[in-house]
């Protein structure tokens, strides 16, 4: 244990030089698990250190794809640190298990994670992040589907570079934070602004989405014992008047799930229709 701590101290001593006068947050942590880095993607500010800890029983490495850094073998419970000074994207992998990959993104302004599930219309959503330039205001921008980015909030960062704002969930869209010429990563907020109704027809179900969602993607799910629950049996697109007719063989218990661009993330789920 002592040897390990010494090794860590040696590594950090060589690599960690906190910029004078700047914010001095603790290192950003990544766990090395059995078969992945967690988180596999991390946003840091220039000058910050990332500290990897092997919490698995396997030996791994943290090796830059471009040769910038290489931990060598990191045994169980051991650590490795590296300080990132330049803005950019840094991909890395484990040389022992090449399918284990990770990424550190160094940006001068960052945007924290959003809720992964859909939020209801009107819900206040906390957004936060950090900036390398606390003197500049941070502008939060939103781009609804098909539009362009527009400002939804402007905030003054704290002296340590952290910032936070609250935005009202109105419509599904991409968000980013801007500080001067610097732009954060883009994150998507899913808002359940739509309501899906399914009603039985002679051949299956008729689907209506309100307010209208032309060309939105949906899944047709049926409930079945051999699928151990609700299971997608078809997919489709809502038409330009926000309607769709779906053919479904009887008997079936059916529901329609409006989904996001990835074809899977649910935005709204219809009533259940029983076709006898």
């Amino acid at each position, binding site marked *: 244990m002592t040897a390990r701590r010494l090794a860590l101290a040696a590594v950090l001593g060589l690599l960690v030089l906190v910029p004078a006068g700047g914010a001095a947050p603790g290192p950003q942590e990544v766990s090395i698990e059995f078969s992945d880095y967690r988180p596999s993607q991390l946003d840091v500010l220039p000058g910050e250190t990332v500290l990897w800890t092997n919490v698995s029983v396997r030996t791994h490495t943290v090796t830059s794809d471009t040769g910038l850094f290489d931990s060598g073998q990191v045994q169980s419970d051991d650590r490795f640190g590296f300080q990132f000074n330049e803005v950019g994207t840094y991909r890395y992998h484990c040389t022992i298990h090449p399918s284990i990959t990770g990424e550190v993104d160094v940006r001068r302004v960052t945007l924290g994670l959003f809720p992964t599930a859909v939020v209801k219309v009107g819900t206040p959503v906390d957004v936060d992040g950090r900036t390398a330039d606390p003197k500049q205001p941070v502008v939060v921008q939103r781009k609804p589907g098909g539009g362009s980015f527009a400002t939804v909030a402007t905030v003054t960062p704290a002296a340590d570079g952290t910032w936070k704002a609250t935005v009202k969930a109105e419509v599904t869209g991409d968000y980013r934070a801007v500080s001067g010429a610097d732009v954060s990563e883009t994150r998507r907020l899913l808002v359940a602004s739509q309501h899906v109704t399914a009603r039985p027809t002679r051949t299956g179900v008729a689907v209506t989405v309100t307010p209208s969602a032309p060309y939105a993607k949906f899944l047709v799910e049926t409930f079945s014992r051999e699928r*151990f*629950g609700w299971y997608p049996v078809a997919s489709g697109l809502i038409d330009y008047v926000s309607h769709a007719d779906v053919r479904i063989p009887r008997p079936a218990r059916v529901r329609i799930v409006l989904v996001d661009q990835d074809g*899977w993330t649910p935005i709204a789920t219809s009533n259940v229709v029983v076709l006898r």
Partner: protein
Amino acid sequence: MAGPAPAAPPPGRTIDYWVAAVPISWNIVPNGRDGITGDEVPLSDSVLPTVVYRQYSPHWKKPIANAPRESTDGLVIPGPLIRARVGDTIRVHFKNLDTLRKAPHSMHFHGVHYKPSSDGAYVPGFSGKDADVKVGQSYTYVLHAGEDSAGVWPYHDHSPSMMESIDGGMFGMLSILGRNERAPDREFEVVLAPMGKFMTIDGRAFVGNTPVFHAKVGELVQWDVMAMGSDFHTFHVHGHRWISPGKIPKDTQTVGPAESYRFRWREDAPGTWLYHCHVEDHMMRGMIGIYRVSR
């Protein structure tokens, strides 16, 4: 609903397959859970953008099913089931439509005869366009099913992007019948491979998501089993046995990377059965499915 497997074409024919590498958004666990333990699986773990082999109508006019629905549950992992008979020539017309990663791709086939120009394996300074088909380009692989080609065999990407492409599901099977061998009534494709955090069968994990195979008592069923990746698996079907080449009855078969096996039996056991990899860690991470036999 599913009828008997279509009969193989007459011997000595030339068979054309049209295949493209296409991006898709893939869900490894569409019902969102491990149906046995009840554990929920978040979409952030199960959904990933990837590139797969997709079968097309001639000249890549429109995508068609990769295999009869009964063979892979209508999934697009594995790639098109390439069926032939000993004596046939197979032409696989491959097009790279990978607009996701914009990576080069190829197809490399096991078990059949071909010239080096149809090997599809990238070796700098030696291999040609067959091994490095760029986005928007196409290549035709010419394969011959010889007397020693009867059986099932893998094919997979062997281009410069092969590591991430195979991890993402760019593999499939050839199923070649002997010259006078009868086709089975049911043919089930089982590809054992890791994907993301899961151990998958045909790119899906946990009961209900992995293919639900169906057969009737009296039918001749054939299981096509192979593995991709870096792990060994032990494939097991409950309630059944088959005769291995040494005339030994078996109910479990070890399958290593790129190994492939074909088992047949005359179905006589009605009920709902499990099929799974018996490496317990793999089974717990999703490598398990159900097989339903009706009277």
